[in-house]
Protein backbone atom coordinates (compact mmCIF):
# COMPACT_ATOMS: atom_id res chain seq x y z
CA UNK A 1 0.00 0.00 0.00
CA UNK A 2 1.45 3.32 -1.06
CA UNK A 3 1.90 5.98 1.59
CA UNK A 4 2.16 9.72 1.48
CA UNK A 5 5.40 11.50 2.32
CA UNK A 6 4.28 14.53 4.24
CA UNK A 7 6.89 17.25 4.21
CA UNK A 8 5.04 20.35 3.04
CA UNK A 9 1.83 19.07 4.55
CA UNK A 10 3.49 17.87 7.76
CA UNK A 11 1.53 20.08 10.16
CA UNK A 12 -1.37 20.81 7.84
CA UNK A 13 -4.02 19.44 10.21
CA UNK A 14 -2.69 21.36 13.23
CA UNK A 15 -5.53 23.54 14.54
CA UNK A 16 -4.82 27.25 14.18
CA UNK A 17 -1.81 26.78 11.91
CA UNK A 18 -2.90 29.86 9.96
CA UNK A 19 -2.14 32.04 12.99
CA UNK A 20 1.39 33.24 13.56
CA UNK A 21 1.59 31.96 17.14
CA UNK A 22 0.98 28.34 16.23
CA UNK A 23 3.21 28.64 13.18
CA UNK A 24 6.09 30.03 15.23
CA UNK A 25 5.62 27.35 17.88
CA UNK A 26 6.16 24.75 15.16
CA UNK A 27 9.46 26.35 14.15
CA UNK A 28 8.10 28.92 11.73
CA UNK A 29 10.15 32.00 10.78
CA UNK A 30 13.32 30.42 12.27
CA UNK A 31 14.39 29.65 8.69
CA UNK A 32 13.95 33.32 7.85
CA UNK A 33 16.39 34.24 10.59
CA UNK A 34 18.91 31.78 9.19
CA UNK A 35 18.45 33.00 5.61
CA UNK A 36 18.68 36.69 6.45
CA UNK A 37 21.39 36.71 9.09
CA UNK A 38 23.56 33.64 8.68
CA UNK A 39 23.52 33.21 4.91
CA UNK A 40 24.79 35.42 2.08
CA UNK A 41 22.69 36.07 -1.05
CA UNK A 42 25.00 33.92 -3.16
CA UNK A 43 24.89 31.09 -0.68
CA UNK A 44 21.10 31.19 -0.69
CA UNK A 45 20.84 31.04 -4.48
CA UNK A 46 23.45 28.26 -4.62
CA UNK A 47 21.55 26.22 -2.05
CA UNK A 48 18.32 26.58 -4.03
CA UNK A 49 20.09 25.64 -7.22
CA UNK A 50 21.80 22.64 -5.62
CA UNK A 51 18.49 21.35 -4.28
CA UNK A 52 17.22 20.75 -7.80
CA UNK A 53 13.82 22.21 -6.87
CA UNK A 54 11.74 22.51 -10.02
CA UNK A 55 8.83 24.91 -10.45
CA UNK A 56 5.56 23.41 -9.30
CA UNK A 57 3.28 25.59 -11.39
CA UNK A 58 3.41 23.64 -14.62
CA UNK A 59 6.58 24.29 -16.59
CA UNK A 60 8.93 22.56 -14.15
CA UNK A 61 11.78 25.01 -14.62
CA UNK A 62 14.61 24.88 -12.05
CA UNK A 63 13.75 27.42 -9.36
CA UNK A 64 17.32 28.18 -8.27
CA UNK A 65 18.36 28.75 -11.86
CA UNK A 66 15.49 31.17 -12.36
CA UNK A 67 16.59 33.09 -9.26
CA UNK A 68 20.17 33.18 -10.53
CA UNK A 69 19.02 34.85 -13.78
CA UNK A 70 17.95 37.96 -11.88
CA UNK A 71 20.61 40.58 -12.59
CA UNK A 72 22.67 41.95 -9.72
CA UNK A 73 22.99 45.61 -8.86
CA UNK A 74 20.94 48.43 -7.43
CA UNK A 75 17.62 48.58 -9.26
CA UNK A 76 13.98 47.95 -8.52
CA UNK A 77 13.43 44.21 -8.53
CA UNK A 78 10.23 42.36 -7.82
CA UNK A 79 8.95 39.02 -6.72
CA UNK A 80 5.54 37.73 -7.76
CA UNK A 81 3.99 34.73 -6.19
CA UNK A 82 1.73 33.08 -8.74
CA UNK A 83 -1.33 32.02 -6.76
CA UNK A 84 -3.69 32.24 -9.74
CA UNK A 85 -4.33 28.52 -9.56
CA UNK A 86 -6.79 28.10 -12.40
CA UNK A 87 -5.66 24.98 -14.19
CA UNK A 88 -8.68 22.66 -14.14
CA UNK A 89 -8.04 19.85 -11.69
CA UNK A 90 -5.51 21.74 -9.57
CA UNK A 91 -6.28 22.71 -5.98
CA UNK A 92 -3.02 22.18 -4.10
CA UNK A 93 -2.15 25.87 -3.64
CA UNK A 94 -5.60 26.48 -2.24
CA UNK A 95 -4.88 24.00 0.55
CA UNK A 96 -1.45 25.48 1.31
CA UNK A 97 -2.73 29.06 1.40
CA UNK A 98 -5.80 28.23 3.45
CA UNK A 99 -4.08 26.08 6.05
CA UNK A 100 -0.51 27.31 6.14
CA UNK A 101 -0.29 30.88 4.80
CA UNK A 102 2.78 31.75 6.89
CA UNK A 103 4.86 29.03 5.23
CA UNK A 104 4.20 30.76 1.92
CA UNK A 105 5.00 34.19 3.36
CA UNK A 106 8.25 32.92 4.87
CA UNK A 107 9.15 31.37 1.51
CA UNK A 108 8.40 34.64 -0.27
CA UNK A 109 10.61 36.67 2.06
CA UNK A 110 13.53 34.26 1.67
CA UNK A 111 13.15 34.03 -2.11
CA UNK A 112 12.89 37.82 -2.37
CA UNK A 113 16.11 38.13 -0.43
CA UNK A 114 17.77 35.61 -2.78
CA UNK A 115 16.61 37.61 -5.81
CA UNK A 116 17.32 40.99 -4.20
CA UNK A 117 13.71 42.06 -4.61
CA UNK A 118 12.28 44.68 -2.29
CA UNK A 119 8.69 44.47 -3.37
CA UNK A 120 6.64 41.30 -3.53
CA UNK A 121 3.09 40.60 -4.60
CA UNK A 122 0.94 37.54 -4.13
CA UNK A 123 -1.31 37.41 -7.19
CA UNK A 124 -4.22 35.27 -6.05
CA UNK A 125 -7.23 34.43 -8.18
CA UNK A 126 -10.28 36.43 -7.18
CA UNK A 127 -12.47 33.36 -6.75
CA UNK A 128 -10.35 32.28 -3.77
CA UNK A 129 -11.97 34.80 -1.42
CA UNK A 130 -11.55 32.73 1.73
CA UNK A 131 -7.88 32.06 1.00
CA UNK A 132 -7.18 35.69 0.06
CA UNK A 133 -8.75 36.86 3.34
CA UNK A 134 -6.61 34.37 5.28
CA UNK A 135 -3.47 35.48 3.44
CA UNK A 136 -4.19 39.16 4.02
CA UNK A 137 -4.62 38.52 7.71
CA UNK A 138 -1.40 36.50 7.81
CA UNK A 139 0.53 39.26 6.02
CA UNK A 140 -0.77 41.76 8.59
CA UNK A 141 0.43 39.46 11.39
CA UNK A 142 3.84 39.11 9.76
CA UNK A 143 4.08 42.88 9.37
CA UNK A 144 3.18 43.41 13.03
CA UNK A 145 5.94 41.00 14.07
CA UNK A 146 8.49 42.73 11.86
CA UNK A 147 9.01 39.84 9.42
CA UNK A 148 7.78 42.03 6.59
CA UNK A 149 8.78 45.68 6.42
CA UNK A 150 11.91 47.79 6.90
CA UNK A 151 15.18 46.13 7.92
CA UNK A 152 13.74 42.73 8.69
CA UNK A 153 15.19 41.16 11.88
CA UNK A 154 17.83 43.86 12.01
CA UNK A 155 19.37 42.86 8.67
CA UNK A 156 19.80 45.29 5.78
CA UNK A 157 16.93 43.67 3.87
CA UNK A 158 13.56 45.37 3.50
CA UNK A 159 10.47 44.01 1.83
CA UNK A 160 7.02 45.30 1.02
CA UNK A 161 4.40 42.60 0.49
CA UNK A 162 0.83 42.87 -0.78
CA UNK A 163 -1.90 40.44 -1.67
CA UNK A 164 -3.32 41.32 -5.09
CA UNK A 165 -6.59 39.71 -6.14
CA UNK A 166 -7.23 38.83 -9.75
CA UNK A 167 -10.70 39.15 -11.21
CA UNK A 168 -11.23 35.82 -12.88
CA UNK A 169 -9.12 34.96 -15.90
CA UNK A 170 -7.33 31.67 -16.45
CA UNK A 171 -4.76 33.36 -18.66
CA UNK A 172 -3.43 35.37 -15.71
CA UNK A 173 -1.73 32.19 -14.52
CA UNK A 174 0.62 32.63 -17.49
CA UNK A 175 3.49 34.61 -16.02
CA UNK A 176 3.62 37.52 -18.46
CA UNK A 177 -0.18 37.88 -18.49
CA UNK A 178 -0.02 37.88 -14.70
CA UNK A 179 2.40 40.79 -14.88
CA UNK A 180 0.08 42.71 -17.19
CA UNK A 181 -2.87 42.07 -14.89
CA UNK A 182 -0.78 43.22 -11.95
CA UNK A 183 0.09 46.38 -13.83
CA UNK A 184 -3.63 47.05 -14.20
CA UNK A 185 -4.18 45.95 -17.78
CA UNK A 186 -6.03 43.24 -19.62
CA UNK A 187 -4.24 39.95 -19.01
CA UNK A 188 -2.59 39.53 -22.38
CA UNK A 189 0.62 37.49 -22.55
CA UNK A 190 3.73 39.31 -23.72
CA UNK A 191 6.19 38.39 -26.40
CA UNK A 192 9.21 36.58 -24.95
CA UNK A 193 12.09 37.32 -24.77
CA UNK A 194 12.66 39.51 -22.82
CA UNK A 195 11.90 37.10 -20.02
CA UNK A 196 10.51 38.40 -16.73
CA UNK A 197 13.86 37.76 -15.04
CA UNK A 198 15.20 40.66 -17.14
CA UNK A 199 12.14 42.76 -17.82
CA UNK A 200 9.08 41.87 -15.87
CA UNK A 201 6.85 43.89 -13.61
CA UNK A 202 7.16 47.64 -14.34
CA UNK A 203 10.02 46.65 -16.69
CA UNK A 204 12.14 45.58 -13.71
CA UNK A 205 13.72 42.16 -13.16
CA UNK A 206 11.06 39.91 -11.68
CA UNK A 207 11.12 36.48 -10.13
CA UNK A 208 7.82 34.64 -10.53
CA UNK A 209 7.18 31.44 -8.65
CA UNK A 210 4.26 29.20 -7.85
CA UNK A 211 2.89 28.88 -4.31
CA UNK A 212 4.07 25.32 -3.81
CA UNK A 213 7.57 26.13 -5.10
CA UNK A 214 7.92 28.99 -2.63
CA UNK A 215 6.59 26.84 0.21
CA UNK A 216 9.51 24.46 -0.37
CA UNK A 217 12.06 27.25 0.08
CA UNK A 218 12.01 27.53 3.91
CA UNK A 219 12.39 23.75 4.19
CA UNK A 220 15.42 23.75 1.89
CA UNK A 221 16.99 26.58 3.89
CA UNK A 222 16.37 24.74 7.14
CA UNK A 223 17.43 21.23 6.20
CA UNK A 224 19.70 21.78 3.23
CA UNK A 225 19.79 20.82 -0.42
CA UNK A 226 20.98 17.28 0.28
CA UNK A 227 18.02 16.56 2.50
CA UNK A 228 15.68 17.81 -0.24
CA UNK A 229 17.39 15.67 -2.85
CA UNK A 230 16.92 12.59 -0.69
CA UNK A 231 13.27 12.67 -1.79
CA UNK A 232 12.11 11.80 -5.26
CA UNK A 233 14.25 10.86 -8.23
CA UNK A 234 17.53 12.23 -9.51
CA UNK A 235 16.02 14.74 -11.92
CA UNK A 236 12.71 15.26 -10.13
CA UNK A 237 13.80 15.98 -6.58
CA UNK A 238 11.55 16.54 -3.62
CA UNK A 239 7.96 15.84 -2.83
CA UNK A 240 4.99 16.97 -4.85
CA UNK A 241 1.44 17.65 -3.83
CA UNK A 242 -0.78 15.86 -6.28
CA UNK A 243 -4.43 16.87 -6.67
CA UNK A 244 -6.49 13.88 -7.69
CA UNK A 245 -10.00 14.51 -8.98
CA UNK A 246 -12.62 13.29 -11.41
CA UNK A 247 -13.97 9.74 -11.18
CA UNK A 248 -12.13 8.54 -8.09
CA UNK A 249 -13.51 7.51 -4.72
CA UNK A 250 -11.34 9.75 -2.55
CA UNK A 251 -10.48 12.92 -4.46
CA UNK A 252 -8.05 15.20 -2.67
CA UNK A 253 -4.50 16.43 -2.21
CA UNK A 254 -1.81 13.83 -1.63
CA UNK A 255 1.83 14.62 -1.02
CA UNK A 256 4.07 12.02 -2.60
CA UNK A 257 7.69 11.51 -3.52
CA UNK A 258 8.10 11.98 -7.24
CA UNK A 259 8.70 8.61 -8.82
CA UNK A 260 5.77 6.78 -7.24
CA UNK A 261 3.67 5.04 -9.89
CA UNK A 262 0.46 6.61 -11.14
CA UNK A 263 -1.47 3.49 -10.14
CA UNK A 264 -0.33 3.86 -6.53
CA UNK A 265 -1.56 7.45 -6.50
CA UNK A 266 -4.84 6.92 -8.28
CA UNK A 267 -5.84 3.50 -6.96
CA UNK A 268 -4.19 3.26 -3.52
CA UNK A 269 -4.28 6.82 -2.27
CA UNK A 270 -7.34 8.13 -4.10
CA UNK A 271 -9.30 4.87 -3.99
CA UNK A 272 -9.50 4.25 -7.72
CA UNK A 273 -12.58 4.58 -9.94
CA UNK A 274 -16.08 3.93 -8.52
CA UNK A 275 -17.18 0.29 -8.03
CA UNK A 276 -17.62 -1.53 -11.31
CA UNK A 277 -15.97 1.17 -13.43
CA UNK A 278 -12.71 1.14 -15.34
CA UNK A 279 -10.30 3.99 -15.90
CA UNK A 280 -10.70 5.14 -19.47
CA UNK A 281 -8.06 7.84 -19.47
CA UNK A 282 -6.50 10.40 -17.18
CA UNK A 283 -4.90 13.82 -17.42
CA UNK A 284 -1.57 13.49 -15.59
CA UNK A 285 -0.89 17.20 -15.12
CA UNK A 286 -4.00 19.31 -15.26
CA UNK A 287 -6.34 19.66 -18.21
CA UNK A 288 -3.54 21.00 -20.43
CA UNK A 289 -1.69 17.70 -20.37
CA UNK A 290 -2.33 15.18 -23.15
CA UNK A 291 -4.41 12.28 -21.83
CA UNK A 292 -2.90 8.90 -21.10
CA UNK A 293 -4.79 5.61 -21.08
CA UNK A 294 -4.92 2.89 -18.43
CA UNK A 295 -1.77 1.18 -19.73
CA UNK A 296 0.29 4.18 -18.58
CA UNK A 297 -0.82 3.63 -14.98
CA UNK A 298 2.33 1.76 -14.04
CA UNK A 299 4.71 4.52 -15.09
CA UNK A 300 6.57 6.37 -12.34
CA UNK A 301 4.99 9.78 -11.76
CA UNK A 302 7.80 12.28 -12.41
CA UNK A 303 8.72 14.98 -14.92
CA UNK A 304 10.79 12.70 -17.20
CA UNK A 305 8.51 9.67 -17.41
CA UNK A 306 5.41 11.72 -18.07
CA UNK A 307 7.24 13.60 -20.84
CA UNK A 308 8.45 10.34 -22.32
CA UNK A 309 4.92 8.97 -22.38
CA UNK A 310 3.93 11.97 -24.51
CA UNK A 311 2.35 14.02 -21.77
CA UNK A 312 3.56 16.15 -18.89
CA UNK A 313 3.57 16.43 -15.12
CA UNK A 314 2.34 20.00 -15.38
CA UNK A 315 0.80 21.28 -12.19
CA UNK A 316 0.56 17.78 -10.74
CA UNK A 317 -3.19 17.44 -11.06
CA UNK A 318 -4.51 14.04 -12.05
CA UNK A 319 -8.04 14.07 -13.46
CA UNK A 320 -9.43 10.58 -13.86
CA UNK A 321 -12.13 9.87 -16.44
CA UNK A 322 -13.92 6.51 -16.22
CA UNK A 323 -15.59 4.48 -18.95
CA UNK A 324 -19.04 5.95 -18.31
CA UNK A 325 -18.05 9.31 -19.82
CA UNK A 326 -18.07 9.71 -23.63
CA UNK A 327 -14.71 11.04 -24.82
CA UNK A 328 -16.36 13.51 -27.22
CA UNK A 329 -18.03 15.21 -24.27
CA UNK A 330 -14.71 15.46 -22.45
CA UNK A 331 -13.09 16.99 -25.54
CA UNK A 332 -15.98 19.41 -25.98
CA UNK A 333 -15.99 20.55 -22.36
CA UNK A 334 -12.24 21.00 -22.50
CA UNK A 335 -12.36 22.98 -25.74
CA UNK A 336 -15.17 25.18 -24.38
CA UNK A 337 -12.98 26.05 -21.42
CA UNK A 338 -10.09 27.16 -23.60
CA UNK A 339 -12.37 29.05 -25.96
CA UNK A 340 -13.77 30.96 -23.01
CA UNK A 341 -10.35 31.66 -21.53
CA UNK A 342 -8.46 32.56 -24.71
CA UNK A 343 -7.48 36.21 -24.38
CA UNK A 344 -7.95 36.72 -28.12
CA UNK A 345 -4.58 38.23 -28.85
CA UNK A 346 -3.22 35.56 -31.23
CA UNK A 347 -5.33 34.38 -34.16
CA UNK A 348 -4.48 30.64 -34.10
CA UNK A 349 -5.64 30.34 -30.50
CA UNK A 350 -8.68 32.64 -30.73
CA UNK A 351 -10.00 31.07 -33.93
CA UNK A 352 -8.67 27.57 -33.34
CA UNK A 353 -10.37 27.14 -29.99
CA UNK A 354 -13.60 28.52 -31.42
CA UNK A 355 -13.61 26.22 -34.43
CA UNK A 356 -12.68 23.19 -32.37
CA UNK A 357 -15.73 23.81 -30.17
CA UNK A 358 -17.96 24.31 -33.21
CA UNK A 359 -16.80 21.09 -34.85
CA UNK A 360 -17.16 19.06 -31.65
CA UNK A 361 -20.67 20.45 -31.18
CA UNK A 362 -21.44 19.42 -34.72
CA UNK A 363 -20.30 15.89 -33.88
CA UNK A 364 -22.58 15.81 -30.89
CA UNK A 365 -25.54 17.05 -32.94
CA UNK A 366 -25.08 14.39 -35.58
CA UNK A 367 -24.10 16.79 -38.33
CA UNK A 368 -20.46 15.76 -38.66
CA UNK A 369 -18.71 13.40 -41.02
CA UNK A 370 -15.67 11.24 -40.17
CA UNK A 371 -13.61 13.80 -42.09
CA UNK A 372 -14.22 16.28 -39.28
CA UNK A 373 -11.99 14.24 -36.99
CA UNK A 374 -9.19 14.84 -39.46
CA UNK A 375 -9.99 18.55 -39.69
CA UNK A 376 -9.99 18.99 -35.91
CA UNK A 377 -6.62 17.30 -35.75
CA UNK A 378 -5.26 19.60 -38.44
CA UNK A 379 -6.65 22.77 -36.91
CA UNK A 380 -5.13 21.83 -33.59
CA UNK A 381 -1.80 20.95 -35.15
CA UNK A 382 -1.73 24.48 -36.53
CA UNK A 383 -2.25 26.06 -33.12
CA UNK A 384 0.74 24.42 -31.48
CA UNK A 385 3.77 26.67 -31.29
CA UNK A 386 2.17 29.52 -33.20
CA UNK A 387 1.07 31.77 -30.35
CA UNK A 388 2.67 34.05 -27.79
CA UNK A 389 1.73 31.73 -24.93
CA UNK A 390 0.77 28.10 -24.57
CA UNK A 391 -2.97 28.50 -23.92
CA UNK A 392 -3.88 27.35 -27.41
CA UNK A 393 -1.38 24.51 -27.19
CA UNK A 394 -2.96 23.53 -23.91
CA UNK A 395 -6.17 22.76 -25.74
CA UNK A 396 -4.57 21.40 -28.87
CA UNK A 397 -2.36 18.84 -27.16
CA UNK A 398 -5.02 17.06 -25.09
CA UNK A 399 -7.58 17.21 -27.91
CA UNK A 400 -5.11 15.71 -30.35
CA UNK A 401 -4.15 13.04 -27.84
CA UNK A 402 -7.82 12.12 -27.45
CA UNK A 403 -8.23 11.83 -31.20
CA UNK A 404 -5.08 9.73 -31.43
CA UNK A 405 -6.08 7.35 -28.64
CA UNK A 406 -9.85 7.22 -29.11
CA UNK A 407 -10.32 7.67 -32.85
CA UNK A 408 -12.69 4.72 -33.03
CA UNK A 409 -14.88 6.19 -30.35
CA UNK A 410 -14.99 9.55 -32.13
CA UNK A 411 -16.06 7.87 -35.36
CA UNK A 412 -18.57 5.67 -33.59
CA UNK A 413 -20.00 8.72 -31.79
CA UNK A 414 -20.37 10.62 -35.08
CA UNK A 415 -22.13 7.68 -36.72
CA UNK A 416 -24.49 7.04 -33.79
CA UNK A 417 -25.53 10.68 -33.53
CA UNK A 418 -25.95 10.90 -37.28
CA UNK A 419 -28.35 7.96 -37.26
CA UNK A 420 -30.25 9.37 -34.31
CA UNK A 421 -30.64 12.65 -36.15
CA UNK A 422 -31.73 10.87 -39.33
CA UNK A 423 -34.40 8.97 -37.41
CA UNK A 424 -35.64 12.17 -35.84
CA UNK A 425 -35.84 13.82 -39.23
CA UNK A 426 -37.66 10.81 -40.65
CA UNK A 427 -40.15 10.79 -37.77
CA UNK A 428 -40.65 14.51 -38.21
CA UNK A 429 -41.28 14.36 -41.95
CA UNK A 430 -43.65 11.36 -41.54
CA UNK A 431 -45.55 13.37 -38.97
CA UNK A 432 -45.77 16.37 -41.29
CA UNK A 433 -46.91 14.18 -44.13
CA UNK A 434 -49.66 12.66 -42.01
CA UNK A 435 -50.75 16.10 -40.89
CA UNK A 436 -50.97 17.46 -44.42
CA UNK A 437 -52.91 14.41 -45.64
CA UNK A 438 -55.29 14.79 -42.72
CA UNK A 439 -55.83 18.41 -43.69
CA UNK A 440 -56.53 17.32 -47.26
CA UNK A 441 -59.32 14.96 -46.21
CA UNK A 442 -60.98 17.53 -44.02
Amino acid sequence: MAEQTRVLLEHIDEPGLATIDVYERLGGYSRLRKALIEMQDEELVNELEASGLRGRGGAGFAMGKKASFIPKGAMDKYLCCNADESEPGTFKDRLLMQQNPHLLIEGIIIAARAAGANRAFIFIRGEYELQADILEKAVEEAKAKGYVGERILGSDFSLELWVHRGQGAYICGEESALLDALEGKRGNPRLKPPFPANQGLYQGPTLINNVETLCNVPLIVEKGADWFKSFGTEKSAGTKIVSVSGNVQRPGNYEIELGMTVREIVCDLAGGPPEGREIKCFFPGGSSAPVLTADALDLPYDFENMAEAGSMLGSGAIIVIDDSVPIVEVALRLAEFYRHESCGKCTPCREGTNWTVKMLERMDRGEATPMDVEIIDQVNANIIGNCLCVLGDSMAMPVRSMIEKFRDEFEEHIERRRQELAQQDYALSAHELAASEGAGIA
Partner: protein
Amino acid sequence: MTQKGTGPFFAQGTQPAEPDASVAKKGPVPKVVPDLAETDVPQELQAEIEELMSRYPDHHSAALPALAAAQRLHGWCSPEAIDQVAAVMRVTPAYLSSIATFYDMLNTEPVGRQYVWVCTSVACMPKNAKAVYDAIREAGGDLDDVNIREFECLGACDLAPMASVNGRYIGPLQPSDAEQIVEALKRGEQPLPGRGLGDG
Protein backbone atom coordinates in the same frame (compact mmCIF):
# COMPACT_ATOMS: atom_id res chain seq x y z
CA MET B 1 10.35 68.71 -58.28
CA THR B 2 7.79 66.02 -57.69
CA GLN B 3 6.46 65.80 -54.21
CA LYS B 4 5.84 62.49 -52.57
CA GLY B 5 2.37 61.76 -51.35
CA THR B 6 0.53 64.69 -52.79
CA GLY B 7 -3.16 64.00 -52.68
CA PRO B 8 -6.18 64.87 -50.72
CA PHE B 9 -4.60 63.69 -47.44
CA PHE B 10 -1.57 65.90 -47.79
CA ALA B 11 -3.17 68.84 -49.51
CA GLN B 12 -2.79 70.95 -46.39
CA GLY B 13 0.90 70.09 -45.95
CA THR B 14 1.99 68.70 -42.62
CA GLN B 15 -0.72 70.51 -40.68
CA PRO B 16 -3.77 68.50 -39.65
CA ALA B 17 -6.86 69.33 -41.65
CA GLU B 18 -9.58 71.44 -40.13
CA PRO B 19 -12.03 69.06 -38.46
CA ASP B 20 -14.92 68.36 -40.73
CA ALA B 21 -17.98 69.50 -38.80
CA SER B 22 -20.26 66.96 -40.47
CA VAL B 23 -17.97 64.06 -39.41
CA ALA B 24 -17.49 65.25 -35.86
CA LYS B 25 -21.21 65.28 -35.23
CA LYS B 26 -21.66 61.66 -36.17
CA GLY B 27 -20.31 59.79 -33.12
CA PRO B 28 -20.24 60.42 -29.42
CA VAL B 29 -17.25 62.38 -28.22
CA PRO B 30 -14.84 60.04 -26.39
CA LYS B 31 -14.85 60.70 -22.69
CA VAL B 32 -11.81 62.33 -21.22
CA VAL B 33 -10.51 61.77 -17.70
CA PRO B 34 -13.39 62.88 -15.48
CA ASP B 35 -12.68 65.74 -13.13
CA LEU B 36 -12.73 64.52 -9.54
CA ALA B 37 -14.22 67.82 -8.38
CA GLU B 38 -17.15 67.42 -10.73
CA THR B 39 -17.73 63.71 -10.16
CA ASP B 40 -19.84 62.52 -7.29
CA VAL B 41 -17.66 59.82 -5.70
CA PRO B 42 -18.72 58.25 -2.38
CA GLN B 43 -16.11 59.10 0.22
CA GLU B 44 -15.39 55.53 1.33
CA LEU B 45 -14.87 54.41 -2.24
CA GLN B 46 -12.46 57.25 -2.90
CA ALA B 47 -10.54 56.49 0.28
CA GLU B 48 -10.37 52.79 -0.58
CA ILE B 49 -9.11 53.40 -4.11
CA GLU B 50 -6.55 55.92 -2.92
CA GLU B 51 -5.26 53.45 -0.35
CA LEU B 52 -5.03 50.80 -3.09
CA MET B 53 -3.11 53.15 -5.38
CA SER B 54 -0.58 53.87 -2.64
CA ARG B 55 0.42 50.19 -2.54
CA TYR B 56 2.00 50.12 -5.99
CA PRO B 57 4.87 51.95 -7.65
CA ASP B 58 2.52 52.62 -10.58
CA HIS B 59 -1.00 53.60 -9.60
CA HIS B 60 -2.50 51.86 -12.65
CA SER B 61 -1.96 48.58 -10.80
CA ALA B 62 -4.90 49.42 -8.59
CA ALA B 63 -7.30 49.20 -11.55
CA LEU B 64 -8.51 45.66 -10.87
CA PRO B 65 -9.07 45.94 -7.12
CA ALA B 66 -10.53 49.44 -7.58
CA LEU B 67 -13.11 48.19 -10.08
CA ALA B 68 -13.92 45.30 -7.75
CA ALA B 69 -14.48 47.81 -4.94
CA ALA B 70 -16.76 49.91 -7.14
CA GLN B 71 -18.65 46.78 -8.12
CA ARG B 72 -19.20 45.87 -4.48
CA LEU B 73 -20.75 49.30 -3.99
CA HIS B 74 -22.82 49.56 -7.17
CA GLY B 75 -23.58 45.90 -7.81
CA TRP B 76 -21.93 46.04 -11.22
CA CYS B 77 -19.42 48.08 -13.20
CA SER B 78 -21.99 50.61 -14.35
CA PRO B 79 -20.91 53.61 -16.43
CA GLU B 80 -21.38 55.65 -13.26
CA ALA B 81 -19.14 53.29 -11.26
CA ILE B 82 -16.49 53.36 -13.96
CA ASP B 83 -16.58 57.17 -14.08
CA GLN B 84 -16.07 57.32 -10.33
CA VAL B 85 -13.05 55.00 -10.44
CA ALA B 86 -11.68 56.87 -13.46
CA ALA B 87 -11.95 60.20 -11.64
CA VAL B 88 -10.07 58.93 -8.60
CA MET B 89 -7.45 57.03 -10.60
CA ARG B 90 -7.05 59.82 -13.18
CA VAL B 91 -7.48 57.47 -16.14
CA THR B 92 -10.03 57.48 -18.95
CA PRO B 93 -13.25 55.49 -18.56
CA ALA B 94 -12.33 53.67 -21.77
CA TYR B 95 -9.20 52.30 -20.12
CA LEU B 96 -11.25 50.89 -17.27
CA SER B 97 -13.92 49.53 -19.65
CA SER B 98 -11.23 47.56 -21.45
CA ILE B 99 -10.44 45.88 -18.15
CA ALA B 100 -14.01 45.40 -16.96
CA THR B 101 -14.92 43.60 -20.18
CA PHE B 102 -11.93 41.26 -19.94
CA TYR B 103 -12.35 39.74 -16.50
CA ASP B 104 -15.07 37.24 -15.61
CA MET B 105 -15.72 38.58 -12.14
CA LEU B 106 -16.38 42.13 -13.27
CA ASN B 107 -19.89 42.58 -14.61
CA THR B 108 -20.63 45.14 -17.27
CA GLU B 109 -24.33 44.49 -16.96
CA PRO B 110 -26.57 44.47 -13.89
CA VAL B 111 -26.72 40.71 -13.36
CA GLY B 112 -27.41 40.69 -9.62
CA ARG B 113 -25.60 41.46 -6.41
CA GLN B 114 -25.48 37.86 -5.28
CA TYR B 115 -24.12 34.98 -7.27
CA VAL B 116 -24.14 31.22 -7.57
CA TRP B 117 -21.32 30.00 -9.78
CA VAL B 118 -21.57 26.31 -10.57
CA CYS B 119 -18.33 24.78 -11.74
CA THR B 120 -18.91 22.64 -14.81
CA SER B 121 -15.30 22.35 -15.87
CA VAL B 122 -13.57 19.17 -16.91
CA ALA B 123 -13.00 17.76 -13.40
CA CYS B 124 -16.57 18.44 -12.22
CA MET B 125 -18.16 17.39 -15.52
CA PRO B 126 -17.70 13.61 -15.09
CA LYS B 127 -19.45 13.96 -11.73
CA ASN B 128 -22.63 15.27 -13.27
CA ALA B 129 -22.07 18.97 -12.63
CA LYS B 130 -24.34 19.96 -15.48
CA ALA B 131 -27.34 18.33 -13.76
CA VAL B 132 -26.55 20.28 -10.59
CA TYR B 133 -26.39 23.50 -12.58
CA ASP B 134 -29.67 22.79 -14.36
CA ALA B 135 -31.39 21.99 -11.05
CA ILE B 136 -30.19 25.21 -9.40
CA ARG B 137 -31.12 27.20 -12.48
CA GLU B 138 -34.62 25.75 -12.44
CA ALA B 139 -35.16 26.13 -8.69
CA GLY B 140 -33.81 29.68 -8.73
CA GLY B 141 -35.77 30.81 -11.76
CA ASP B 142 -37.75 33.41 -9.78
CA LEU B 143 -34.83 34.74 -7.73
CA ASP B 144 -34.18 38.43 -8.16
CA ASP B 145 -30.74 39.90 -7.96
CA VAL B 146 -28.94 36.54 -8.06
CA ASN B 147 -26.60 35.67 -10.90
CA ILE B 148 -26.71 31.93 -11.49
CA ARG B 149 -24.16 30.88 -14.07
CA GLU B 150 -21.82 28.11 -15.09
CA PHE B 151 -18.24 28.90 -14.20
CA GLU B 152 -14.88 27.59 -15.30
CA CYS B 153 -12.76 25.59 -12.86
CA LEU B 154 -13.00 27.16 -9.40
CA GLY B 155 -10.11 25.14 -8.00
CA ALA B 156 -12.07 22.86 -5.70
CA CYS B 157 -12.18 19.65 -7.70
CA ASP B 158 -12.02 17.64 -4.47
CA LEU B 159 -15.50 18.96 -3.70
CA ALA B 160 -16.83 18.17 -7.18
CA PRO B 161 -19.47 18.94 -8.20
CA MET B 162 -19.31 22.25 -6.39
CA ALA B 163 -20.47 25.85 -6.52
CA SER B 164 -19.37 29.16 -5.14
CA VAL B 165 -22.19 31.02 -3.45
CA ASN B 166 -21.12 34.63 -2.88
CA GLY B 167 -17.53 33.48 -2.50
CA ARG B 168 -18.23 30.55 -0.20
CA TYR B 169 -17.43 27.15 -1.70
CA ILE B 170 -19.96 24.39 -1.14
CA GLY B 171 -19.86 20.76 -2.24
CA PRO B 172 -20.12 17.96 -3.13
CA LEU B 173 -23.56 18.83 -4.47
CA GLN B 174 -26.48 16.76 -5.69
CA PRO B 175 -29.22 18.11 -7.96
CA SER B 176 -31.53 17.59 -4.94
CA ASP B 177 -29.59 20.27 -2.99
CA ALA B 178 -30.83 22.96 -5.36
CA GLU B 179 -34.03 23.69 -3.41
CA GLN B 180 -32.15 24.20 -0.16
CA ILE B 181 -29.61 26.50 -1.78
CA VAL B 182 -32.31 28.66 -3.33
CA GLU B 183 -34.37 28.76 -0.11
CA ALA B 184 -31.30 29.87 1.87
CA LEU B 185 -30.58 32.60 -0.67
CA LYS B 186 -34.16 33.86 -0.39
CA ARG B 187 -33.82 34.06 3.40
CA GLY B 188 -30.41 35.71 3.06
CA GLU B 189 -28.63 32.84 4.83
CA GLN B 190 -25.59 30.75 4.00
CA PRO B 191 -26.74 27.67 2.12
CA LEU B 192 -25.84 24.16 3.29
CA PRO B 193 -24.16 25.01 6.61
CA GLY B 194 -21.40 22.56 7.46
CA ARG B 195 -20.84 21.61 3.85
CA GLY B 196 -18.72 24.59 2.87
CA LEU B 197 -14.97 24.73 2.44
CA GLY B 198 -13.35 25.77 5.71
CA ASP B 199 -16.57 25.31 7.71
CA GLY B 200 -15.23 22.59 9.98
